[in-house]
């Protein structure tokens, strides 16, 4: 109901709009149609005033005071809203850490010889992460170190004598002290998720503030899951370095076997990329020019960052990839895969293949993936796609002629390596000097999804453009990165047009020192949604350099078009890390003035961070700039 506003336009992306016109002509329903059918949405759910946690329910509280003022059990609006938010944080944490756990198992299988299809691609990172975890590395075999690291990762999921190490060892000591003081250090990642489920059960925690503190602690566990996901993926598949690529539906190619890799984990997609490179003959045998792999959502980000595989589309527009008629096979792992892809695929005659036991979709085909047979499974998938191409060949497709150049691959290691060309001894010095001098006014991380309630990409593009002009260094991950890359914000050629003089000088100096003959792109792509950990790592490095805590830095974050509960848990750890954190869509918390007060104000006394909920991108950008300036002032800049 509150969102009865139908967006003025569906998407800022011309390629998406072209496909939506096609969908309309062919009478194929997309997410935008389903959204309109859903309007107006339920006001109780929208404001968080609905509870289904017990069988006496459902309960709802009337925000206008005429009807029920508390649930059947007596739960107040504050309790109901806080419980609901906690469960969202727990769900997001479960997803990121589930992704990380999958990588830990893969690492363990590799280290113990149970699979031959994986290897350690970044031994230096294996050793540095292991050292951080207190695992001896000198004089030991790579397999032994890898096994110990995998076991340490798996141990971080349950309660043990130490806290969650992937949280406690990745933030400055000052931040550890803040978290300890407020009881926010997680004991185990799964433990925190499980404890949220316990305390939000019928008749357990009925103190909204206590509930929110537990949510914050679970958010810190989410940081651990994300950080672990990034570390282990880099170790197994390589730490990203700057790479040229392209984005948008125009990366699909009519005469090629197009395989869209959708979901989140590189465990399958990375193998597919390397096997496809060796097996181009399989495609040629069916009359195609070769295999053309493209990414969707964060699986796309993972393989773009490491291999320069183009991103086809992201998030809310995932159905449009299928609407081209040119996708021969959509291979999915898990997370953010709309069940509707099955229906759209049936309309278009496209095959969708699910690969993970926890993510099957009625109306699609399933092939259970296993790390033990990764290479073999990858070949089977390629054969399936090639066969589909043979059936599609000669049939009409509609591929929008829209694509944008992208430079991606900015891991923290890559950024430090680039900076070391300016100062080999003290690579962070140029960054910090420019921050102090004001050439870099602050740093903003754009993360999260595209929400159907917002014209696709509008919040991201308006905010990022405004902040670039104000000399803010922009980082991006996940489908936020997808949004910005589609509109040319990761194309170095656009630095002149988009950037303020200060940030332009910085990007140009780094680019030229690295022999690029020009600047870095306006926005630095740091990876998938687990890779928000990279932004935290960069902030922590700068904080340690300056000898301050992360909440003193002029660093802010924005999930401008958030959808997933994963965005809620990421936002929570950004706040736990002390960052002013913008959310550009309404969180289901407005039914509790107390919860709103805690999230936007009081939590600042605990962590230094806080949420800014603002649906207007212009004023949201102003608020983030004001937060940056406030912190600069705090640092005496």
């Amino acid at each position, binding site marked *: 109901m*509150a969102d009865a506003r139908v967006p003025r336009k569906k998407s800022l992306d011309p390629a998406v709009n072209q496909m939506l016109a096609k969908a309309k002509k062919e009478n194929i329903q997309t997410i935008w149609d389903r959204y309109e059918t859903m309007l*107006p949405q339920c*006001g*109780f759910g929208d*404001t968080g005033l609905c509870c289904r946690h017990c069988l006496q329910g459902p309960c709802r509280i009337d925000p206008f005071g005429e009807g029920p003022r508390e649930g059947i059990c007596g739960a107040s609006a504050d309790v109901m809203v806080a419980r609901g938010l906690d469960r969202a944080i727990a769900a997001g944490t479960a997803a990121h850490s589930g992704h990380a756990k999958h990588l830990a198992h893969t690492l363990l299988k590799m280290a113990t010889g149970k699979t031959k299809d994986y290897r350690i691609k970044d031994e230096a990172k294996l050793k540095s992460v292991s050292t951080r975890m207190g695992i001896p590395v000198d004089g030991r075999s790579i397999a032994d170190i890898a096994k110990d690291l995998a076991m340490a990762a798996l141990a971080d999921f349950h309660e043990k004598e130490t806290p969650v190490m992937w949280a406690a060892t990745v933030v400055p000591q000052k931040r550890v002290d803040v978290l300890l003081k407020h009881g926010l250090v997680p004991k185990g990642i799964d433990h925190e998720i499980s404890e949220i489920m316990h305390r939000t059960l019928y008749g357990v925690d009925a103190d909204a503030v206590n509930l929110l503190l537990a949510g914050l602690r679970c958010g810190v566990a989410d940081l651990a899951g994300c950080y672990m996901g990034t570390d282990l993926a880099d170790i197994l598949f390589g730490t990203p370095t700057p790479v040229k690529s392209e984005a948008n539906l125009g990366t699909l190619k009519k005469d090629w076997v197009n395989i869209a890799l959708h979901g989140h984990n590189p465990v399958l997609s990375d193998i597919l990329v390397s096997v496809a490179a060796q097996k181009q003959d399989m495609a040629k045998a069916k009359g195609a020019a070769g295999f053309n792999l493209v990414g969707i959502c964060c699986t796309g980000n993972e393989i773009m960052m490491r291999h320069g595989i183009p991103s086809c589309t992201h998030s809310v527009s995932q159905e449009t990839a299928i609407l081209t008629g040119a996708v021969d096979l959509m291979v999915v792992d898990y997370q953010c895969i709309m069940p509707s892809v099955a229906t759209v695929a049936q309309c278009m005659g496209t095959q969708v293949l699910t690969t993970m036991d926890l993510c099957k979709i009625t109306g699609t085909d399933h092939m259970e993936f296993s790390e033990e047979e990764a290479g073999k499974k990858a070949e089977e998938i390629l054969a399936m796609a090639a066969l589909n191409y043979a059936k599609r060949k000669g049939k009409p497709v509609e591929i929008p002629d829209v694509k944008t150049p992208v430079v991606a691959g900015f891991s923290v290691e890559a950024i430090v390596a680039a900076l070391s060309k300016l100062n080999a001894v003290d690579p962070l010095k140029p960054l910090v000097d420019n921050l102090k001098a004001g050439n870099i006014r602050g740093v903003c991380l754009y993360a999260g999804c595209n929400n159907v309630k917002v014209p696709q990409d509008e919040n991201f593009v308006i905010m990022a453009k405004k902040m670039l002009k104000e000399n803010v260094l922009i980082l991006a991950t996940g489908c936020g990165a997808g949004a910005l890359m589609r509109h040319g914000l990761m194309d170095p050629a656009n630095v002149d047009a988009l950037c303020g003089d200060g940030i332009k000088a910085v990007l140009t100096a780094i680019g030229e020192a690295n022999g690029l003959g020009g600047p870095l792109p306006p926005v630095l792509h740091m990876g998938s949604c687990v890779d928000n950990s990279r932004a935290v790592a960069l902030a922590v490095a700068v904080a340690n350099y300056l000898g301050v805590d992360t909440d003193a830095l002029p660093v802010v974050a924005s999930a401008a078009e958030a959808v997933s509960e994963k965005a809620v848990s990421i936002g929570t750890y950004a706040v736990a890390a002390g960052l002013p954190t913008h959310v550009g869509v309404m969180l289901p918390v407005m039914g509790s003035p107390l919860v709103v007060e805690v999230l936007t104000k009081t939590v600042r006394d605990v962590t230094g961070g806080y949420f800014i909920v603002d649906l207007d991108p212009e004023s949201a950008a102003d608020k983030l700039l004001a937060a940056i300036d406030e912190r600069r002032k705090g640092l005496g800049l």
Partner: protein
Amino acid sequence: MDQIKEIFVRKDLCMGCHSCELACAVAHSASKNIYEAMGEHPMPKSRVYVETVSASVPVPILCRHCEDAPCMHACIAGAIHRTADQAVVTDADKCIGCWTCVMVCPYGVIGRHLEARKAYRCDRCQDRDQPACVSACPTKALVYQTVTDFSKDLRRKAAEELSRGEGR
């Protein structure tokens, strides 16, 4: 003259979600936005009431805008009149808060606003094409139709039942 549309209830479709009540209150707020409306003073009021006689049968009840409206006859302040659109409305400026209208209304759908100290009721959302409660109903239990159309729908449904009885 065109027939006036009325808000009708298809009571077998009501799930008791109370979405109509929320939408009504928001439509009668200053901001027209649920997030802001919750904090407004005077507090926006719903003019539709989902009543439940037995636990499983919720029924939305709202002003019928009677042709021969008892409230209009009974109002000693002359605050109740019929608009050009045939809606029976209370003029808040004239209302003296005697609650006579509440007493005579057979449906009990006239409310007392404690802060404003005025009577209030459904006005069929004069500024909207379709009343907010109708738009908000997820099961279309509330419809905005002319008597002719609503009756025709009922007759067709009855005819369907009858023909099914004859095995057609």
